[in-house]
């Protein structure tokens, strides 16, 4: 492996600039008029939700995610951000992000999508599952009246990303499925100024809304939280099969997709489970879908387990590579060689990473390895 100190320095300066840029965005967000949820039922503030069916007695059925909540008048769905009001279903978070940040795309993580670029990352409150190990539970498990939000309409999001040299808008931190209307409109606005869009999701979404989103998105990262229904039921309050269905759908739609698997000691680190999952990925999605094995740290309601031993992550990565997956990574272990991309053709490092920084990138703009010319799967230009 060759080390280029000059390039590293440049990268360092670039990343430092990103930090300052991030600070300025947070500062400017404070100047944006804060909107209280108290007047959320002022009709002019509300956007009618997409993906629902009207039922008798002012009930509605939400068909956005596999949960398919049936919601009485003046009640919200499981996500807490979509409310039935008089038989009409509204999104309470359209244009109201609670978080906005400029992040390196590697933080998402998306390793095969414009490496070294930045993504203007936004989130509203809410989530359609309940992971006991959630890293952003302060906003994902809250409701709109419990977290301060800001007026930030789609066009302003796109313009902000463009003016700050972000090559993409990332819908992330919480679960973007629950603000699908806002995400769609932001992505559409982004396209008009040549800014791409990436969805960082749990994949817990019904087929039609996902198909619609594929028209405006450029990449999707899916958290595959385990490969057993038991785990999904007990730790996520969701189901595995719909997530697998989403992954297959993304493949059919030719959407660039990467998978993250948070390895939690004793809960989803079984060798057989990992083998079955990797075989399924190769069979159903193909060997070029990258998988990131991320290190778990005790969080939220799962504080009784230790951080994932690095040896477990190494084992998981080896299982993936042995199963035929071309790109298997180790996440949340800065400096580990498993952060870098190896060319499947010549086995040289083609993207050398250190944490979220790109130390060296040996992939040509057309996606070929500079060493052997092998075409590396991903979006590089």
């Amino acid at each position, binding site marked *: 492996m060759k080390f280029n100190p000059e390039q590293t320095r440049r990268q360092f300066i670039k990343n430092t600039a990103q930090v300052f840029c991030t600070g300025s965005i947070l500062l400017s967000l404070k100047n944006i008029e804060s909107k209280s949820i108290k007047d959320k039922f002022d009709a002019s503030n509300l956007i009618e939700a997409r993906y629902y069916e009207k039922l008798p*007695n002012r009930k509605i059925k939400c068909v956005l995610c596999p949960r398919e909540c*049936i919601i009485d008048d003046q009640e919200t769905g499981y996500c807490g951000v979509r409310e039935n009001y008089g038989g009409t279903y509204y999104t309470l978070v359209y244009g109201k992000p609670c978080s906005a940040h400029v992040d390196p795309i590697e933080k998402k993580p998306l390793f095969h999508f414009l490496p070294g670029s930045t993504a203007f990352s936004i989130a509203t409150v809410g989530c359609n599952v*309940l992971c006991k190990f959630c890293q952003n539970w302060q906003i994902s498990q809250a409701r709109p009246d*419990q977290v301060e939000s800001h007026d930030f309409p789609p066009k302003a999001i796109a313009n902000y990303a463009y003016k700050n040299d972000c090559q993409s808008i990332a819908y992330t931190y919480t679960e973007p499925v629950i603000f699908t209307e806002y995400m769609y409109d932001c992505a559409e606005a982004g396209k008009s100024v040549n800014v791409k869009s990436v969805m960082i999701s749990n994949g817990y979404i019904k087929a039609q809304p996902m198909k619609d989103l594929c028209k405006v998105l450029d990449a999707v990262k899916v958290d595959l939280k385990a490969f057993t229904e038991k785990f999904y039921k007990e730790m996520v309050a969701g189901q595995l099969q719909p997530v697998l269905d989403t992954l297959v759908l993304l493949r059919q739609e030719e959407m660039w997709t990467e998978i993250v698997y948070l390895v939690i000691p004793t809960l989803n680190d079984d060798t057989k489970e990992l083998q079955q999952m990797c075989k399924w990925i190769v069979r159903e999605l193909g060997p070029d879908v990258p998988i990131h094995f991320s290190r778990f740290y005790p969080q*939220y309601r799962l504080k009784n387990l230790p951080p994932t031993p690095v040896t477990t992550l190494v084992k998981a990565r080896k299982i993936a590579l042995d199963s035929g997956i071309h790109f298997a990574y180790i996440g949340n272990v800065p400096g580990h060689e498993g952060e870098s991309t190896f060319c499947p053709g010549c086995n040289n490092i083609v993207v050398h990473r250190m944490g979220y920084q790109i130390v060296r990138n040996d992939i040509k703009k057309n996606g070929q390895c500079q060493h052997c010319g092998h075409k590396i799967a991903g979006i590089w230009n």
Partner: protein
Amino acid sequence: MCSIKRREFIQTGIKAGAAFYFGTIPGCKGGAKEHFNKNNHYPIVIAQNSVIRDKNENLIGKQVNNLLDRAMENLFQVNKAEQAWQCLFKENDVVGIKVNCLGGKGISTHIELVEAIIEGLKSAGVLERNIIVWDRANRDLEKVGYRIITDRNKIKYYGTDVAGYTYDIYEYGEVGSHLSNILVKQCTAIVNVPILKDHGIVGITNALKNFFGAIHNPNKYHDFNGDPYIADVNMLSEIRSKVRIIISDALTIQYDGGPPFMPQWAWHYNGLLVGFDPVAIDTIGWDIIEQQRKENRLQTLKQVGREPTYIATAADEKHRLGFNDLSKINVIRI
């Protein structure tokens, strides 16, 4: 050397434990404790009055007050209701009256009942400025007709959206939630004043379910008919230790179409369910709703997939929040 006998010590311990279990104050003189000794659990008073409304079907405040007085007198077996209130509250208590206003006007905790409870609290010496009528949000209270008041010297009416939620997460079983600051930080005692009605997911909503209005994430806990989540929420120490009495508003009951108000399924029961045991009160409330459903040729809640199984869970060995065997609940009807 202590002169108390071992048997007396154990007996006292059991009584005190049982009293704490139901959120009452040990040492209170009155019939309720005698009932407990005799039947192994506290009674539930079902108080009804058919002439509680005027000819326009509006509640008569004075009659509601009388009904509550009689319920308290019978629950505590005392001659005057104020004696009962004095058993429950001290002068320096800050008392939260937890109402349920989510169903809007028509099927929410009635203002007349809340006013009667306030009179009772005042008769126990509780200062007006130490009484807070609260629910999830100001808008919930306002849509029912409560006026938001935050003046420190008056009886206060406001929602948790004003007071906020605790930073800490309170956990039991499947539940992990931030709790209302009103419950945790502002009140020393709670009067649980739910409304009895049908619920489209969990079957019925009454005493146990009312505390979904005290957590920040009730939307996460309606799966599986709210079982075991509703029971788990009621196990949280801040709720168990502060609820002194339950006064369930059964003046108007809705037996189908809930939780929003559906007048075609609402009827004037003109009653109150008063006691210390939330499980017993919910069991009785469920039975009242089932009887009304039967009379109106509706299927049972079990048949429509909405059996409130969380009530049995609240009574199980793990939770022990009260008794759910209808045949063994000691009911006083007045």
